[in-house]
């Protein structure tokens, strides 16, 4: 019963922690790689986190959609091997927002370090 409660709380908090973090990570990866396919974004996240931070296809789909809606990235189709493939790149606003977020993330990291002593 207690184990179940702990699992539930952990799952919820992990989800909350990751949902904002994924958007930041996707923007950062796109800034570095310039133009990437959605599959490559997932792969890169997996490589960088040792497989710990890999959103599901559904979660990544929603993140990309939401970032596009906010005007932070744009998508475009490219024909590859007779099949349309969708690639993503940052917009100018996306770059500016990422720069602002970087300061925010830096602040969070320094607070965490101070808590840990």
């Amino acid at each position, binding site marked *: 019963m207690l184990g179940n409660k702990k699992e539930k709380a952990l799952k919820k908090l992990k989800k909350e922690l990751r949902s904002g973090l994924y958007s930041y990570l996707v923007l950062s990866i796109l800034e570095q790689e310039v133009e990437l396919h959605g599959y490559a974004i997932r792969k890169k996240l997996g490589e960088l986190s040792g497989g710990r931070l890999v959103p599901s*296809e559904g979660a990544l789909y929603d993140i990309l959609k939401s970032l596009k809606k906010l005007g932070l990235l744009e998508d475009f189709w490219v024909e590859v091997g007779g099949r349309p493939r969708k690639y993503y790149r940052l917009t100018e606003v996306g770059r500016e927002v990422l720069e602002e977020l970087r300061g925010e993330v830096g602040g969070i990291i320094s607070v965490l370090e101070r808590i840990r002593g």
Partner: protein
Amino acid sequence: MNFQTAVEVFMVLGLLVAGVTTLAFRNRQNILIGFRVGYTYHSERVWRKVNTFAGVFSIVYSLFLLLLAFLGVSLEVFMFIAVAFVLLELLIGTWMAKREYELEELSKEAPEKPARGEMHASIRRYVLLQLAFLAGYLLLTALLWDRLPERIATHFNASGRPNGFSERVWGALWTPLLVWLLPFALTLPARDPGFFAKVAFYPGSVRAWCGFTTVLSGGVMLLFSLIVLYNADIVSSGVINYGVFIFLGALLLSFYRLLRVGKNGGV
């Protein structure tokens, strides 16, 4: 069974056959039957999912329409509901196909972005033209509204004699608006290049496809305008016949272009 019910039942049977065959071919991609857009042609999984939805949805609303036909619902209301269902099916099917294809995209390995092959599609001028056709028609109808009788002629036989009538609001406003929506709904998805399949038998050019739907839109609005002018006693029914010939000629030409056009837009 009276004439109106017979017409309605005939239409229901057409929709029912379309639904049943769509469901029957949900596991087999083909060029004639089913929800055939780029997303469904490029993925067997998406084809199966969208065509299962489209087949079941068509069968369910066909049975509902059959019930309405036997309840004696007027032809105008029946048509309105039928077109609304077809539009809803188009919208949901396209949305579902796009979402499922894009989800699948995220699980399929892709190479680094090639230097060439970026797909662009601009449908702005076609959308504006179709909106202009609608605006022109609505303006004409508004100007002649008081000259139109309460029941207007909406259908004519081969010799130009009217043989179908409608209430003014239905015949001059709602029906034209709904019919205009069909080519418009077929044009909008073309703004997304993934909507078009990269296969030999599919329209090779977005421009040719939008040209075809725009001619269709212009043609039906021309015919509705002539019908309004006839009912306002401005033109004879013979003019409507000429309008039909012009419309069919333009439609055939644009259909020919659609079949013959190359991927770069040249015939």
